[in-house]
């Protein structure tokens, strides 16, 4: 850490309220749908009602003549201005997908696939016109079961691919066969996770405004990744990048769902380009359920070989998951499988290892990255096996974990499959957790209550989570997504600092992180730092927020920029005072004598001299009071975080209902910039993991119809169902950066589902039942207890 960051009054690490939250609390946020530029048109989307169907006829004549309609775009209309895309990562061997256009041409491949775009004066008029679209469908057989997607008798969705296999990956290390042959105990289980989706409270929204007079396209977009969108839009619409500006204003939740390319959004951009007018598209909630990317939906068969005394001798994993009819663009739909095949039991000395992950195409909604990408699945399998192993050996599950964690001195440790674990704090996290939750006290309470017919369970789940990803995630796969971020600092004329950064704010606190880091390093009050985010025209180039990277990567860029600006200011002052740089410091926004702390110059005076009184600046000296620094994590594929969660719950064995009593998390995200941001983000992430454990699933019929595509039917966790979540920390800063921060946004989701599943099974164990499929519903618990057929 720099001397600036280490200063006693530094806001780095302080629980400061977020400056930019005040607007949101006053109803003065500005989300994309709050913008209504002059001559605005509104778009509504015709979607396929079938999972798989040929378009025999599409006649837009009547709809085009409806009141208010400005234009109707079909698949061919958009294809004329927008090149197709294929969502493959070149560094995933054998990965394949078919070309995809924004709107379906001739054939729709999932229920909800956009088919045509109606652009009208109001959204209501656009929707009225949708009802007049004359379309004749020929329904085709749909592929909806991942388990049979590769069978000979199953139709191939894209015949040119030869099969429904998107990719298969094998990770192998050591002799698994002999590990299982030698095992004293073999644990076998099949885990299922449901397909679910992000449900951002603000739906996907885009407003594209093409000004034909100067050829400039401005796109306001509810996105995590303005620079990725700029590249995509420029590339596919064949525009110079300098003519495309993407602005992410306030974003109402994202969770990884807003990093993908969506056909309806691309079609809205096409409409603006063709009409030369602003066009807005807002996905309503019903179309969000079929239009947004889904995630998870894995079936994992796993085995663990154990020695007599409880060492893990080997682990075998067979992962199968069904994606959409196309691999997602531009990030592909492989990342969940890559994580699952890398990470099962990765926090432990797992012995010989063999994992297969296969992703298959099916006629369901698009599929891809959502908060914690694959980690919750890997964690569920790992921790489910660990609990079964502990039971088999008759060892307490905490003790079984303690015995099998990787020894602290073994790091850095490279896993089969590639990732390196830099340094985890598993032992410390476990002891801290057991203490925080009063583990032995809870066990005693559990035993006592069991005698009274009350069935409570305690579930533990250690997790690891990738963060600060390098170019290994996308860049090496040929995908134009930045793995570096930048921060530009400018000393204002009155001694404030404006920090423009390439990350975005979707609520996580990117604004506050940059503000606190810059204020801390530069020695200015944090109120004097203004942060500019989310605009390709006013911020430097960078990757945005995804993969738990914002603080770890752009925070480091801000730190380095702060050091550079501070050095430039001090060098300038030293020159005009004809003294030495090292004799000065900046404290509370003033340049002071480093030893005595006596004020030498205010930053306003520094700026005035540099900007307005250049006559007082030596002729041979030019102060640089605007600086940019960039940072990319290049040491490892990612900086792995770790931690452990625990769930305490009660199962009603008559109704199958689960009541969550408490939840604990110990998380290690390295250096914490602001605990307020970290802790509540961990809680929110846990709630999404709990939602996956107990409530959330996209239910499809055998024909590929989404059966619960509304908020009435798709259950999202509510305040009344959630427990208090106690968060504690271990702190192992990453040595890949000076700041030492690792990601914090996803880890909660990675571990929560497994903790809940283990707690439920802990509660059911004396009754002889167990569940291994998420979400665990009251029905599934009653079935496990054989109280339902």
């Amino acid at each position: 850490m720099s001397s600036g960051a280490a200063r006693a009054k530094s806001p780095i690490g302080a629980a400061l309220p977020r400056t930019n939250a005040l607007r949101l609390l006053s109803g003065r946020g500005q989300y994309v749908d709050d913008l209504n530029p002059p001559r605005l048109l509104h778009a509504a989307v015709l979607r396929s009602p079938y999972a798989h169907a040929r378009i025999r006829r599409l006649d837009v004549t009547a709809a085009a003549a409806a009141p208010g309609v400005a234009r109707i775009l079909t698949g061919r209309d958009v294809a004329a201005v927008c090149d197709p895309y294929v969502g493959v990562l070149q560094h995933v061997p054998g990965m394949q997908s078919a070309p995809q256009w924004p709107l379906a041409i001739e054939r729709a491949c999932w229920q909800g696939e956009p088919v045509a775009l109606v652009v009208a004066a109001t959204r209501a008029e656009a929707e009225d016109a949708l009802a007049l679209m004359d379309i004749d469908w020929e329904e085709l057989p749909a592929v909806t079961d991942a388990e049979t997607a590769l069978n000979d008798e199953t139709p191939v969705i894209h015949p040119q691919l030869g099969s429904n296999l998107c990719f298969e990956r094998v990770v192998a290390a050591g002799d698994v066969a002999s590990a299982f042959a030698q095992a004293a105990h073999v644990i076998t289980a099949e885990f299922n996770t449901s397909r679910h989706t992000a449900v951002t409270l603000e739906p996907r929204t885009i407003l594209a405004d093409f000004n034909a007079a100067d050829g400039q396209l401005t796109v306001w977009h509810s996105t995590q990744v303005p620079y990725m969108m700029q590249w995509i839009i420029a590339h596919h619409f064949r525009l110079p990048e300098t003519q495309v500006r993407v602005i992410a204003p306030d974003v109402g939740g994202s969770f990884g769902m807003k990093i993908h390319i969506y056909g309806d959004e691309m079609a809205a951009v096409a409409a603006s380009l063709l009409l030369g007018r602003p066009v807005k598209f807002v996905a309503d909630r019903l179309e969000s359920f079929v239009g947004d990317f889904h995630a998870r939906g894995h079936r994992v068969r796993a085995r663990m070989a154990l020695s007599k005394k409880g060492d893990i001798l080997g682990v075998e994993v067979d992962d199968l998951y069904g994606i959409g009819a196309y691999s997602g663009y531009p990030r592909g739909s492989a990342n969940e499988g890559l994580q699952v095949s890398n990470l099962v039991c990765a926090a432990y000395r797992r012995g010989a290892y063999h994992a297969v992950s296969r992703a298959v195409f099916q006629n369901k909604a698009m599929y891809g990255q959502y908060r914690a990408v694959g980690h919750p699945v890997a964690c569920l399998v790992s921790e489910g096996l660990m609990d079964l192993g502990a039971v088999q050996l008759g060892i307490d599950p905490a003790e079984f974990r303690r015995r099998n964690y990787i020894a602290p001195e073994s790091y850095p440790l490279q896993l089969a499959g590639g990732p390196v674990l830099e340094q985890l704090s598993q032992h410390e996290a476990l002891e801290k957790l057991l203490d925080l939750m009063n583990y032995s006290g809870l066990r005693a309470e559990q035993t006592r209550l069991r005698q009274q017919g009350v069935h409570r369970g305690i579930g533990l789940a250690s997790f690891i989570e990738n963060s600060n990803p390098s170019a290994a995630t996308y860049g090496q796969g040929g995908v134009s997504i930045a793995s570096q971020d930048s921060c530009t600092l400018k000393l204002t004329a009155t001694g404030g600092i404006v920090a423009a950064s390439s990350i975005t704010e979707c609520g996580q606190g990117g604004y506050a992180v940059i503000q606190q880091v810059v204020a801390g390093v530069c020695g200015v009050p944090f109120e004097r730092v203004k942060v500019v985010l989310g605009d390709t025209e006013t911020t430097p180039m960078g990757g945005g927020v995804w993969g738990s990277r914002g603080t770890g990567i752009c925070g480091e860029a801000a730190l380095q920029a702060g050091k550079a600006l501070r050095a430039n200011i001090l060098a300038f002052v030293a020159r005009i005072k004809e003294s030495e740089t090292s004799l000065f410091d900046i404290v509370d926004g003033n340049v002071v004598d480093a030893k005595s702390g006596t004020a030498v110059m205010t930053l306003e005076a520094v700026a005035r001299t540099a900007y307005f009184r250049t006559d007082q600046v030596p002729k041979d000296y030019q102060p640089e009071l605007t600086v940019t620094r960039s940072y990319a994590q290049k040491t490892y594929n990612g900086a792995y975080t770790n931690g452990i969660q625990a769930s305490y719950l009660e199962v009603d064995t008559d109704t199958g209902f689960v009541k969550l009593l408490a939840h604990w998390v110990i998380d290690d995200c390295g250096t914490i910039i602001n605990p307020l941001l970290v802790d509540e983000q961990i809680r929110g992430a846990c709630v999404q993991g709990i939602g996956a454990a107990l409530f959330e699933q996209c239910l499809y019929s055998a024909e590929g119809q989404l059966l619960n595509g509304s908020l009435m039917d798709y259950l999202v966790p509510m305040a009344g169902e959630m427990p208090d979540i106690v968060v504690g920390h271990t702190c192992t800063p990453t040595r890949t950066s000076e700041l030492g921060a690792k990601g914090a946004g996803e880890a909660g989701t990675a571990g929560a589902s497994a903790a809940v599943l283990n707690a439920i099974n802990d509660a059911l164990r004396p009754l002889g039942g167990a569940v291994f499929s998420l979400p665990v519903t009251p029905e599934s618990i009653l079935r496990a207890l054989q109280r339902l057929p």
Partner: protein
Amino acid sequence: MSTPQPATTLEITLTVNGERVARRVPVRQNLADFLRDTLGLTGTHVGCEHGVCGACTVRVDGAIVRACLMLAVQADGATVVTIEGAADDGAYGNVIADLRREFHQRNALQCGFCTPAMLLTAAELVVRHPQATRDEIRAHLSGNYCRCTGYQSIVDAVAAVCRASTNS
């Protein structure tokens, strides 16, 4: 004689955030769209348009309602308060100000999309039942989804305002 056509628009007059408003509105327009699109009060957010998420909550004649489930014409003659005017609304206004402060201090919001509605919903509880227990607070807020926070900091903030309100 031709059959009279049903009206597609109607005149309405109402009070919004203390100001009298008269407009001709489409009869099918919901109150949320009227507030946002016609009056520019974009602090009322539209999250689901089927009455579940609670993001469009406003106060109509003193009671919190889902603005997506109410037609603008049904607000004819009513007094409507949105987040933009909530802090100026008498006793409720003070509670809103207190809630804002506690939400801010505890970072009881992330993306902020649910926040205006969450404040209005919470204010109703603080005014009507300041002795609410933590479980009662959680139950009262259960009609307002938050996908970011995990709810805990929101519950903490509301509990703090309830406590202060019963102590004063």
